[in-house]
C-alpha cells in the first residue's frame, strides 16, 4: 500500500507562531521559548497534540508565541486549567508556563495541590524574582533586601520562597532547575520532564533585564549542581534546605507513576439506565 509521502520532521521553528513577543530585548523568557520549541521538536510531538497553558505575566505570554494549542488564562490559575484539560484529554501533552508571581504568589495553592495530584503535566516557572508585567514589584522569590519597588521600599524582609522545597514537601515527583542562559541544558531538562509520567516541575532562572538588571550576572553565578539526582525524598529534602538556588540540574526524580484521574468505568451505564433509577416502585 502506498500512503502519502512521510512529512519532513518538524523543526523547532515549526513550533513557533509568527506573533512577535512583547518582551524587552534581552529578557530571559526568549530562551525559554526556544528551549520549549526545541524540546518539542526533539520529541517530535505532533503540534496538535500539545497544549501550552499559562497564567498572566510576561512569562505567561509564551503560549501565543508557539504554534501548538494554547490557553492564556488568568493570573495564577494556569495549573487548574491544565488540570482540567489533562483529566479531560489524557492523550494530550500538556505544558504549563508562568512566572514566579503567577505560580508562587497568587497561584501558590494550585502549585501545592498540583504537585500532590501528580497528573502528567510539565510545569515551567520562569523565575525572575519580580513581577515583570506590572513593572517591578517584589515576588515571593525576591531577595529580602531588594528595595527597588515602591511597594516594599525597605525590602520585603522575608526569606525568599523556595519553590523546589515546597514542590518536594507537596509531593512532586520530578523537580529540576534550569537557566535561560543555558538553553541546551534547559532543553534537555524539558525533554526529560515532558517524558516523565507524572507532574514535573522545572524552576527556570530567567532574568528580567528591565527590573533586575543585576540578574545579567546570573551568567556567572548559576552553575550545575554538584550532586547527582536523587530519588530519595529524605535526601532531597535535606539538600533543598541547603540549596543556594543557583544550581541547575535534575534535583529529584521519584520513580512513582502518574495518577490517571479516571480509568474505564467499572460499571458503565447509559443515560436511560441512569434515569430509570428514579422510577418509583
Amino acid at each position, binding site marked *: 500500500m502506498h500512503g502519502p509521502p512521510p512529512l519532513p520532521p518538524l523543526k523547532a521553528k515549526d513550533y513557533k507562531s509568527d*506573533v512577535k513577543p512583547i518582551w524587552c530585548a534581552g529578557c530571559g523568557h526568549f530562551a525559554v521559548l526556544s528551549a520549549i520549541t526545541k524540546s518539542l521538536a526533539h520529541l517530535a510531538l505532533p503540534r*496538535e497534540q500539545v497544549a501550552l497553558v499559562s497564567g498572566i505575566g510576561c512569562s505567561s505570554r509564551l503560549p501565543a508565541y508557539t504554534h501548538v494549542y494554547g490557553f492564556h488564562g488568568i493570573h495564577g490559575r494556569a495549573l487548574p486549567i491544565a488540570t*482540567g484539560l489533562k*483529566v479531560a484529554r489524557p492523550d494530550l501533552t500538556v505544558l504549563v508556563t508562568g512566572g514566579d508571581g503567577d505560580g508562587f504568589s497568587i497561584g501558590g*495553592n494550585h502549585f501545592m495541590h498540583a504537585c500532590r495530584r501528580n497528573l502528567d503535566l510539565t510545569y515551567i516557572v520562569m523565575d525572575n524574582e519580580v513581577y515583570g508585567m506590572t513593572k517591578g514589584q517584589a515576588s515571593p522569590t525576591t531577595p529580602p533586601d531588594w528595595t527597588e519597588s515602591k511597594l516594599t521600599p525597605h525590602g520585603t524582609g522575608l526569606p525568599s520562597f523556595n519553590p523546589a522545597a515546597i514542590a518536594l514537601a507537596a509531593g512532586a515527583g520530578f523537580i529540576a532547575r534550569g537557566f535561560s542562559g543555558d538553553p541546551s541544558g534547559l532543553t534537555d531538562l524539558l525533554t526529560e520532564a515532558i517524558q516523565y509520567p507524572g507532574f514535573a516541575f522545572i524552576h527556570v532562572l530567567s532574568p528580567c533585564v528591565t527590573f533586575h538588571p543585576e540578574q545579567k550576572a546570573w551568567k556567572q553565578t548559576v552553575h550545575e549542581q554538584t550532586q547527582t539526582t536523587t530519588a530519595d525524598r529524605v535526601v532531597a529534602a535535606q539538600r533543598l534546605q541547603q540549596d543556594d538556588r543557583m544550581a541547575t540540574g535534575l534535583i529529584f526524580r521519584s520513580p512513582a507513576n502518574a495518577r490517571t484521574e479516571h480509568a474505564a468505568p467499572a460499571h458503565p451505564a447509559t443515560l436511560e439506565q*441512569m434515569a430509570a433509577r428514579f422510577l418509583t416502585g
Partner: protein
Amino acid sequence: MDRKTDLSETRSLSVAIIGSGGSGVVTTGKILLESIARFGLYALMTRSSGPQIRGGESAIMLRVADRPVASLDDHFDLLLALDWLNVDRFADELPISTESIILRDSDQGEVPPRFNLSPEQQLAAPLSQLAAESENGRANMVGLGLLAQLMGLPLETVKETAQDILKRKGDAVLASSLLCIEQGYGQAPEKKIVTPLTQPASPTTRWNISGNEASGLGAVQGGIRFVAAYPITPASELLEWLAPNLERLGGGLVQAEDELASVNMIIGASFGGVPSLTATSGPGLSLMMEGLGLAVASETPVVVSNVMRGGPSTGIPTKSEQSDLNLALYGLHGDAPHLVLSALSIRDSVFTTEWAVKLAETLQTVAIVLSDQSQGQARAVIDPPTSPMLEGKRKLAVEHADYRRYALTEDAVSPMAIPGDADCMYTADGLEHNQLGTPSATATDHQLQLDKRRNKLSGFDYGDDWADIGGEGDICLITWGSASGAAREAAERLTRAGYPTRTVAVRLLSPLPIARFSAAIEGTTHQLVVEQNHGAQFYDYLNARKVLPPTAGSLARPGPLPLRPQEIVNHIMKGL
C-alpha cells in the same frame, strides 16, 4: 380572606414529622414518600435540621396530592412529634392552623404551649411503649404505621416500601421495623381525623427524585462529562450524585482544592472539547467570578449550577433563599454577557440544567443555573421530566484554511477547534483579541469582539422555553426559580376565588427575551413580581430591562422560611 372557604383547594394533605437526632425522622420520611409514590399520588418532601452536624434535631415536611406538588401548603394538617427536643428551632417552619392535628408519643411529654392547640387537636399514642414490645423496635416505625393508617395508605404498600428501603440494615432490624409499622397501623383513633387519601384509578409512571439529583441528571443528559468542584452546602449532593454517574458514563469528577481551581479546571476541560460543569453555592460562586469572566472572554462553554442558600456571606448555609440573582446576572467585571437560567421546580431541574448545558455549548459561553436549597435538598414524586428540543452541540471548526478562532460570523458564534485538530492551532485568550485570538488593544477589535459576544446571545432564538406561562387574567404573578411553585398555586387560588390570575415563571433570566416577556404580561392589569430575597433583585432586574409597567408591585421576602401560596394571595388581595 380564609382560603378554606374562599379559595378552597383541599385535595392535598400536609404532614410533618419532627424529632431529635437519631429518632429516625429522615428514614420515616423516606419510606412515607416512596409509599405515597407507589400508592399513585404525587408529593413534595422538604427537610430541615438544626445547626448541629449530626445528632441534632430534624424535621421533614411532606405534602401529598393527586397532582404534582410544587410548594408546601400554608399549614400542616398532621404533625407527628417523636419528641420535642429543640422544637423551638422549627416552630417557625411548622405553621399550624385551627384544623391542624398534632400526634405525640405519650412518653414524650405534652405538646408545648407555644403551639396553642385546643385539646381536640392533640392526640397521644404510646409509640415508644409499643416499640419496646419488639426487640430493636423503634418509635418512629410505630409512628410511621400510625401515620400511614391515618392518611389512608395501604399497610402492604408501606411494608413493601420499608422492606426495600431498610433491607440493607439486615434482617433483624427489618423484621422488627415491619412489626412496629403494623402495630402503629393498628392504633387508629376512633374517628377519622383527616380525610384519607384516595388512590387514583390508573396510577402512572412516577419518579422519586431530589432537586439536586434532577440537576445532575439534566447535566449528564445535556452532555456534561467532566465536573470539578469543591464541596459546599447545599450543593454537595449534586456532586455526590454526579461523581459515580459521570464515571459510569466514562467521564469524571475532580474534587478541587477550592472554587478558583474548580472553575478553571472546567474551563480547561471544556477547551479540551469535553462539556463541563461545576456546582456550588453563594460563597463559591463569588470566588468563581473571575474564572467565569475568562470563560466569557475566551468563549469557552462552561456551566455552573448554583444552589442558593441564605446570604450574605456565610449566611444561613442550610436554608433557602433566592438572593444570588444579582451576583449571577452582574457579578463579572467588564462587559461580560452570559446566560443565567433558573430551575422552576425539582422536576424542572432536569430540563433547565440540560437546556443550560446545550445553550452554553451552542453559544460557547457561560451558563449559570440557579436552584436553591428548598428544591435542591427536597425530594418529590413527579411525572417523568422532559427534555429540551435543542440539539445543543458545539459548532466545531471545519474549514481549516486560515483558521480564525474568534471569526466574526453571521450568528456571531465562531467555529471552535479542539486540540487534536492539526489545522487549527490557536491560543485561547482572556486578553482582548482580534479574530485570530492575538491580543489586541485597538478600539476596533474591542468593539467587534464585544459586539460579537453580546450578539451571539441576544440574536439566538430561545423559543418558548424561556418561561412557563399559565393561566389567564388581569392579575399576573411574575416569578422565577423555586418561588414559581407557590406563585402558581396562589394564582390557582386567586382564579378560583374569582380573580383570574396568570403566572409567568421565567426560566431564562438572561438574556431576557424582551418581546416575549412583554407579550406574556400583555393584557394583564396588575403585575406582582414574586421572589424570595430581601432586595427585590428580580424586580429591579426587570425594571433595568424596562419590561415592567410602572405600577408593577414587588413581593420580595427573604428566607429562611419558604414562600407559601397564601402569603402571595394575601399580598394581592390587600392591593386590590
